[in-house]
């Protein structure tokens, strides 16, 4: 059952106000253990989709199923939220307690876990994100990247099946971004947690197993990073960047080169260019 769909939306529509549909007929299935990146320009409905996955919002039409539970079912609310953790953009506004370990414990306290077990799981989660030495610090003293790792620890401690991260690196400096991205990849590799990463950094999306591009409330591209980023024109039209390497390859091809449009990494690109240059000489 390793390939079952844990998040599954069927003809899902959503509107905040009547007559103004934000999400239109979305059918997205996310498999267990998959690392999905969700892309789209500002206002395309990414955050709205995220909030539909953990029953903060419920579909106005169609359905959203999480682990076989319908998010419209009020009785399953806390089961759903415990299994779909969420991390937000602003690290300051999601930390509840004034001491790191107490914040990590917050979710477990809410779900009524016995105190001794909370202690154990909090320590484990803090070690997992490399913030154990900071357990009795005040979050105010930490950098943005460290705060984000605390927020992630608070979610890991709840042992969810899935984590949805809504632009978690948007407010961080490059060093913080790197740390947080390493932590996010660890979630899948070490804990087998399904990750949905909303981002507008292409280098983050390149590392995903799957990339979905949303535009005006509809998925327009869906596939492996290689497949998705080869559609340079479509991406540009929706106002998105493409990874630098893809952009270079795309431009060279326009000038008559014949490079593989699915090239994504610098190494691949360098190898392909070296090959072309050698051919040109001989």
């Amino acid at each position, binding site marked *: 059952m390793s390939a079952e769909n844990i998040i599954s939306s069927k003809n899902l529509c959503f509107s905040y106000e009547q007559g103004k549909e934000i999400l239109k007929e979305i059918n997205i299935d996310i498999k267990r253990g998959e690392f999905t990146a969700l892309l789209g320009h500002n206002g395309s409905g990414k955050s709205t989709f995220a909030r539909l996955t953990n029953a903060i919002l419920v579909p106005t039409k169609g359905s959203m199923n999480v682990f076989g539970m319908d998010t419209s079912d009020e009785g399953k609310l806390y089961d759903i939220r415990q299994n779909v953790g969420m991390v937000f953009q*602003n690290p300051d506004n999601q930390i*509840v307690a004034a001491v790191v370990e107490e914040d990590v*414990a917050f979710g477990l*306290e809410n779900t009524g876990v016995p105190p001794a077990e909370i202690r154990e799981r909090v320590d484990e989660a803090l070690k997992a994100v490399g913030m154990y030495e900071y357990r009795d610090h005040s979050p105010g003293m930490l950098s943005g990247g460290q705060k984000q790792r605390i927020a992630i620890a608070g979610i890991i401690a709840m042992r969810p099946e899935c984590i949805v991260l809504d632009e978690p690196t948007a407010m961080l400096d490059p060093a913080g971004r790197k740390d947080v991205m390493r932590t996010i990849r660890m979630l899948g590799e070490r804990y087998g947690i399904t990750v949905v990463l909303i981002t507008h950094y292409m280098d983050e999306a390149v590392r995903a197993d799957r990339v979905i591009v949303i535009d005006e409330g509809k998925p327009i591209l869906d596939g492996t990073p290689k497949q998705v980023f080869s559609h340079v024109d479509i991406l540009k039209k929706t106002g998105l960047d493409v990874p630098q390497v893809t952009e270079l390859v795309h431009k060279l091809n326009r000038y008559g080169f014949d490079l593989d449009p699915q090239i994504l990494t610098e190494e691949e690109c360098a190898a392909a260019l070296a090959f072309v240059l050698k051919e040109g000489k001989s």
Partner: protein
Amino acid sequence: MLKDITIDQYFPGKSIVHRLDARFKIIITMIFIVMIFAADTIWSLMTGIAFMLLSYALTALKPSLMVKSLKPVVPVLVITAVLNMFFFEGEEIFRFAFISITDEGVKNAVFMLLRVVSLIVGSSVLTYTTSPVELTGAMEKLLSPLKIFKFPVHELAMMMTISLRFIPTLIEETEKIISAQKARGADFENGSLKERAAAIVPVLVPLFISAFRRAEELALAMECRCYRGGEGRTRMKQLKTGPADIASLVVSFFFLAAVFFIDRKMK
């Protein structure tokens, strides 16, 4: 300047005071407040202060932190002391033009000063050694009998937890906004009272907007982490009462009794 406020800061440690049950710490602090206000003679007040210094010594925190907690209130202290000096009837000991200082006035000023200083230092013994969550958790427990009157005890404790968490964030933000406005030429130091009050408005408006945005995002994050009020909630740090708690409570009562006894003797 705003950063000097340490009143709600927690300094983690392993001292005996740190390890006391937070409920007892709150009760002992209250006993101490009674001591300070009941003390009528300098000797009883000194007894109260001795109790405070003893507690502070047991926290193993740097004495400089004690001074730090007083720094922001120095102007208030000076003003109250001076006013006290002038406005008490009694035997005149000093006169300059229309200014007259009486012995009663000086005595009152000194008392006032000692009381306020002890109050601040005494309550910082509590807040320095108790994490905000423990503190509010203990308050929740102590106030829990009020639940039968439908008093929202848990909600109050949660509100305090969040306030303590966000005070430093909002102070930092205020300072940022002030610098930003100064960089655009706003003047907070000069001008009439009215002009200075007007200069505060462009600081308060963005601060309020940001505070509401934070509140909204925090509420969402709490909901996502399964928050649903106090019902069925557990706590990682259990409040445990041990011999040390009972002993420190007994010692506090002993000092309280000493204060009353000394007052009766000295009068």
